[in-house]
């Protein structure tokens, strides 16, 4: 399978040189610039993860992706992820089908249950229905992708009878983002969606059984092999020291906040050294260090796609632009050599 290298962002609010957070509007305009640069340095995918918080204001990713589409020619553009559980599959299909038209067939969708659950109360969904919502809406989305008038009935939205859901465009790749739920792996295989493994902590190698489960399940459902991708956080700078020092205070701040409700251990200098080292999930370092770790992880998980989740609240736009440039011009060619 041909390899593809991409970038994902959650659109974290960046800071200027004096440490002042930028406005939401400026943050969004900067994300457009980042997407354009990703195309210029030859990357294959640029993804935006939907979030709904003041520190991550990219709630309407598809609009931003359309702006990037207008200024680029070859990079694929998608969500990373679309929280399908709290959205309407019909609208998701319409938005990304439209993006597909605007971009000349460059749209992709990564569907997820959402590990940030802010969208549930926002749109009036009950977290107790977490699994059922995703199950039913994934099914509807798969039906919509087949094209043509649709007849569908379920519990989570109004029924559809011989309904045209437009625009009809070329088929676009659909993935399921999986953070650790084996049921989601089997679900991706059963619908014929590609598998995106979100590896954000711990040893990436522990996901190898997920790849095997996915490949076995595809076979069992009588489907052709499909790509396996990896989404992991990282930061690239000219040297390991520089990358690690830049990333650390912001990582500490973010995990410290998230860990309060999710059970992540508060990072220590030792745990950070482990995560950025060969057995951890952070792809932080010089181009050589990051490339070596990416190649090893892709081989281990039989992955043909790697999306580096760059950017973390508190870094500067300039620092993110440097990561994108180094990733596209240095890291990816090195990984391609290592995998060849």
């Amino acid at each position: 399978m041909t390899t593809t290298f991409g970038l994902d962002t959650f659109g974290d609010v960046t800071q200027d040189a004096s440490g002042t957070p930028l406005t939401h509007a400026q943050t969004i305009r900067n994300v457009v610039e980042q997407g354009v640069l990703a195309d210029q340095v030859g990357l294959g995918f640029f993804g935006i993860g939907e979030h709904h918080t003041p520190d991550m204001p990219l709630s309407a990713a598809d609009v931003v992706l359309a702006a990037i589409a207008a200024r680029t020619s070859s990079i694929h553009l998608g969500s990373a992820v679309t929280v399908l559980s709290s959205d309407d599959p019909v609208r998701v299909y319409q938005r990304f089908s439209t993006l597909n038209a605007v971009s000349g067939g460059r749209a992709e969708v990564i569907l997820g249950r959402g590990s940030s659950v802010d969208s549930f109360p926002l749109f009036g969904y009950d977290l107790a229905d977490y699994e059922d919502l995703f199950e039913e809406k994934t099914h509807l989305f798969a039906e919509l992708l087949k094209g043509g008038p649709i007849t569908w009935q379920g519990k989570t939205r109004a029924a559809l009878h011989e309904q045209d859901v437009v625009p009809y465009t070329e088929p676009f790749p659909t993935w399921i983002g999986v953070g650790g739920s084996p049921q989601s792996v089997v679900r991706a295989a059963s619908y014929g969606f590609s598998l995106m493994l979100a590896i954000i902590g711990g040893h990436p190698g522990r996901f190898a059984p997920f790849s095997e489960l996915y490949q076995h399940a595809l076979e069992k459902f009588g489907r052709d092999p499909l790509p396996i991708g990896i989404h992991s956080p990282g930061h690239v700078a000219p040297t390991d020291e520089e990358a690690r020092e830049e990333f650390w205070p912001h990582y500490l701040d973010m995990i410290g906040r998230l860990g309060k409700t999710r059970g992540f251990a508060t990072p220590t200098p030792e745990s950070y050294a482990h995560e950025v080292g060969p057995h951890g999930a952070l792809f932080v370092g010089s181009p050589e260090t990051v490339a070596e770790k990416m190649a090893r992880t892709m081989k281990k998980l039989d992955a043909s796609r790697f999306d580096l989740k760059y950017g973390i609240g508190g870094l500067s736009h300039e620092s993110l632009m440097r990561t994108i440039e180094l990733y596209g011009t240095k890291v990816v060619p090195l990984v391609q050599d290592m995998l060849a």
Partner: protein
Amino acid sequence: MKIAVLGAGHVGPVLARLALAAGYEVGIAGSGDPARIEMITEFLAPGAVALPAADAVANADLVVLAIPWHRFPALEPGMFAGKVVVDSMNHWPPAEAPLGTSEEVARRLAGADVVKTLNHVAYQDMEPAGGRAVGVAGDSPDAVRAVAEFLERIGFDPVPVGSLAAGRLLEPGSPLFGVAARRQEFENLVKEQS
């Protein structure tokens, strides 16, 4: 000793693997028909046997609850009578302060000896256990002892923190939640909080 793991999501297969590696016989159950989790079991916890929940529990000396919190009310409480039950669940939606969820579990599973542990460790940090300290809370000293022995055999370092009510120390909002520590540091944190 036989272990039943209820739940084949993020946590269940990880604990099943750890138990299998320590030489336990393991039955694993998802919701409904075991055929639904056979493929998952084969790849993520090879050696474990996928069973209906009632069969897995009936065969087991120790039962691990690794299901989402909002699925707990659907469990049939009668089958747990006389069993040692490990509660590794956390409240959902995520809570910011301790709620005493294991006390709620014990009230519903009257007749079982409920022990709270592992809820404060993220699933991606469980394997390898690596001698990480984990808190253990329960009202039955025998049950706490049995669970501590199980935890030790699968690679953790169990630290008793007191009664089930004291298990609130292990819940979100407490400084012990998510702490990756060795015994000494963990014990110091327990003392500070008690």
